């Protein structure tokens, strides 16, 4: 199995660090971004296998980031998991419009996040 790269975007450094550690411990390569704009740029240069993004971020929100990535052919296929503290729910059609595959509410369990990551990437847990 080739090493999968995951891009994690969150303005809360504690969350960013804990998610990165959990994923690295599970054998993934992790790259991080502190806001939506930085994440957009990294997604285009690094072409990650998965994006994990917070909903509420400065510069560009998680949902805007996902929609923007979906617009470009180079990044349209990147699946996404969104973390949210806002009780946002996925509407039918959100997956097609923004590429968000799963929504995880904060506070979340890193174990549950890892399960979701494996599921989206089609890997056995």
């Amino acid at each position, binding site marked *: 199995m080739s090493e999968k790269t995951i891009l994690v975007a969150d303005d809360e450094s*504690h969350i960013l660090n804990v998610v990165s550690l959990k994923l690295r411990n599970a054998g993934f390569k992790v790259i991080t971004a502190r806001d939506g704009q930085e994440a957009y740029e990294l997604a285009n240069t690094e072409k990650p296998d998965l994006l994990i993004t917070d909903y509420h971020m400065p510069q560009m929100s998680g949902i805007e980031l996902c929609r923007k990535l979906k617009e470009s052919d180079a990044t349209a296929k990147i699946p996404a998991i969104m973390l949210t*503290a806002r009780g946002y729910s996925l509407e039918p059609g959100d997956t097609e419009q923004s590429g968000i595959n799963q929504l995880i509410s904060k*506070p*979340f*369990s*890193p174990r549950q996040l890892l399960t979701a990551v494996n599921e989206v990437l089609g890997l056995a847990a």
Partner: protein
Amino acid sequence: MKIRSLPIFVICLIAAGLASIASTAGVLLRTRPDAYTMTVAGIVLFMLASAAGLLAGTVLRGNCRSVARRLANQIAGGSIERVPLKDAEMRPLTTAINDLVDYTNLKISDSRLRFKELEIQLKVAHAERQHAEAIIKSISDAVLVTDRFDELVLANESAARALQFKTTQPRRTPVDKVVSDEKVIELIREMRQSGSTNGRRIVEHKTKVGGVDRTYKITLSCVADDSQGGENREPAGVVCVLHDMTREKEIAQMKNDFVSHVSHELRTPLASIRAYVEMLVDGEAHDEKTRGEFYEIIQSEANRLGRLIDNILSISRIESGLVKVNKKPVSLSVILKEAIEVIAPQAKTKNITIEERVPPAFYQTNADKDMLYQAVLNLMSNSVKYTPEGGNLTIESVVDELSNNVVTRITDNGVGIPAKDLPFVFDKFYRVEANSKMAKGTGLGLSLVKHIIENVHQGKVFVNSEVGKGSTFGFELTLV
């Protein structure tokens, strides 16, 4: 000349003449009882009888006319009285007339009584109507009452304001000539046509009044017509009540936003605590240094959560008026010095120097010491948070004896606040996005300061700032 107009003495003269003729005839009959004499005497007696009859008829007719005249005068005068008996010949007629007079008088008296009753009833009805109108007019909700022809019978001032018409409209003007809101007209018409006299219809209606969005709860009900019997009676009209729920909606929205913000703010530190605890439990922190970092993160996030809850509760209690305010004359300088002592260690870790310019302690303000201390501490803590290493903090308080005010300013040379954010920095949960990476905040600290200074102490908060140069936060209070 007519006989009835002859004076009484003329009649008497004729009677005396006739009597003398009669006595002459009697004398003639006794002295000369021949045929000629008999004939003359017969003629005389016939004339005599005719004259007597004529006389009696004249007298009777005169009495009748007198009674008739008397009655006519009384009727013209508005009251009729019994007729006195003048002549035995007239007794039956007089009795009949008097019975009629008694009967008529009884009827007149009955009618007068009834008239009085109706007059009173009318006054009562008028007073009741005015009372009902006064009640309807005093209702703060807009009330429109229409009749079965959709004509406006009654509308209060609130209705005139809400639907923008003049209350001076004449009664019973078609409602669509008075009210321009198509929806309201349609609802009234539908309700009247439905004929449902039991039950009401409640509709939420969004409209614009003077260019401002308003939301009304419209309650429509039919007025039952009591004069009609039976099951299928038509409604006499429609009562339409418009309750302005714009403010209620706004409050509900604000409440919703508040709960949404609070839950978001609470979830964020809780998310860190939960994730780090789970990592420790799962043994994902491989070395002691990492575990130490995790413990510190959990501790600081738990503290953040505690502060957040304290701030939310303080704001909520101040807003709802539940907080017990204990105001007494206190020295603002003493409070400032106490707060500086608490903030100094934090400032020292960032090499921030604090310059203190406070007036003598004898200047006092009427304040709740704990609350004012919290407000001052929040302002100082913010300044330290948003000032880079090696910065300066100036805390000054200036007394203006002329206007009996004290102005406190906390000035830093920190990151500053963009002009677009300045009007909102005291709003609940507002955070300056550009500075969000500089420090963690709940977005409640400055909101609490504003509440304490303005709502509890009737003072005024202010802010001046320039990006890259620093900020001055302050407040103004009245001296004792």
